[in-house]
């Protein structure tokens, strides 16, 4: 039973990540590969606040989200300056730099050894330590995140985002000239990724740079593109598929190394086939030109 709760927890965390990445990919039109850097920032900042400053979980969580949101703003500025393929390359470079910093700033991040003994989610004396309680809490947070994003993406504000995404020149011609909406959305998406990182760090109690590398970036992008970008259930379905692939391989009877290898072969193949036959994803979302 604990195994099912464990998979449910992972599904919830990756749903938060995929839904927030969809804000960037589907609604801002930015194919960014640095989302797992924001995931990492949330995890490391929250862990450091709890371990070094002994701050309680809610305060650490809030500070980690706000700090990641602020740190993401220069990234948003750079992504706005870049166009098309340059966004992909630039954001991937940023991810590599972030992972390298996590490996080398040993005093702050523990280097390759990572950070251990991260306290679980707690509110005063109440600690969520069982698999079930942590999974239920994460599912609740994922559901709230999903609802907030739906509220936003079906609002009048989303039309401004979509206009900037589809044709920035036509947008400014129609007097859609404010960029604050773009920066707010970017910061919101980064903050949500940080929230996923906070939950993950407290659940695993141990984090190291390998969790947040390029493999994770590809998996997150696959979730959004497979399910269908800018579709309400697209990233959720994508997260379910990408989370399920290794579990299915494991159920067939593979060992840990076998699961890892087969997982990437299967995911690569699935992505390859979708790029050719279903470029808008399963639910038919936003299509990159």
């Amino acid at each position, binding site marked *: 039973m604990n195994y099912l709760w464990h998979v449910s927890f992972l599904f919830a965390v990756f749903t938060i990540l995929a839904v927030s990445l969809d804000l960037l990919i589907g609604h801002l039109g930015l194919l960014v590969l640095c989302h797992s850097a924001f995931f990492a920032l949330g995890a490391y900042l929250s862990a450091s606040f709890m371990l070094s400053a002994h701050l309680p979980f809610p305060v650490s969580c809030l500070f980690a989200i706000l700090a990641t949101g602020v740190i993401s703003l220069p990234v948003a500025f750079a992504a706005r300056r870049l166009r098309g393929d340059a966004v992909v390359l630039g954001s991937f470079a940023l991810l590599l730099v972030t992972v390298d910093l996590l490996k080398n700033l040993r005093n702050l991040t523990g280097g390759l050894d990572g950070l251990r003994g991260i306290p679980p989610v707690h509110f005063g004396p109440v600690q969520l330590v069982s698999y079930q309680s942590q999974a239920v809490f994460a599912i609740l947070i994922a559901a709230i995140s999903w609802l907030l994003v739906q509220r936003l993406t079906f609002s*009048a504000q989303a039309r*401004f985002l979509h206009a900037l995404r589809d*044709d920035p020149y*036509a947008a400014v011609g129609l*007097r859609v000239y404010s960029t604050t909406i773009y920066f707010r959305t970017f910061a919101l998406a980064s903050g949500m990724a940080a929230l996923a990182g906070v939950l993950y760090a407290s659940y695993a109690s141990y984090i190291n740079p390998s969790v947040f590398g390029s493999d994770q970036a590809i998996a997150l992008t696959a979730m959004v593109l497979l399910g269908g970008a800018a579709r309400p259930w697209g990233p959720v379905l994508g997260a379910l598929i990408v989370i399920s692939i290794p579990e299915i391989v494991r159920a067939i009877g593979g060992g840990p190394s076998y699961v890892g290898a087969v997982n990437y072969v299967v995911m690569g193949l699935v992505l390859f086939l979708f790029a050719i036959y279903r470029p808008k994803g399963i639910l038919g979302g936003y299509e990159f030109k």
Partner: protein
Amino acid sequence: MSSSKLLSPLLSLKSVSKSYGSVRCLDAVSFSVYAGERLALVGGNGSGKTSLVDVLSGFTVPDRGIVYMNGLRANRHHPAWFAARGMIRTFQSPRAFEQMTVLDCLCLAAWVPTSPSTFSSLIQPPNYRKKEECVRKHALAALTAVDWGERAAVPAGELSYGQRRFLSILQLSLAEGTVALCDEPTAGLDSNKASEALNLLKGWQTADQARAIIVATHDLEFVSSYFDRILRIEDGIVNEI
């Protein structure tokens, strides 16, 4: 001199020149546009109309000369600077928000320039819901008035060249602004739709007498009945007709 001309001009060009390599598109162009004016720029293909519209809206920086908007020097400002001061424009090659529906394109136009805050979008208080409802009704009424009701849910990317052109005029007709710049607003439209497009532009301008409208076109017949001032542009040189 009309009373509007006693006021300072909304837009003004002083000896503006622009060249691309050895081709001179604009040659020492000077004129002003005042509130309430309906100005047409008429010229053939390659005469410099689009370059002039681009200079007037900040999409092209002139090589020489000065551009003023609302009395402020605007030479090197981004198009967003012009948009923030009330400039709204359409393009020679019609541009559409391809993955948005026709209705959403019009609702967007009716909301500009102020977007709702993220907080109001999330909470959706009564004043937000009231404005959104009003905007949707207004957009649907505009679609029905031009027999486009059945196109409300069609993505703008699926419209033909002429339909995209007409959509851009429809958007303009719903948007708030002080100066509208239309580059070839009737190109690709049949006579009925061209006439409807002109009516929409008239409606936009007469809704507020402080608004000015500038149209760049090759079609002198289209502009002669409505525009109160016509400038002919030929080889980048502008002359009053």
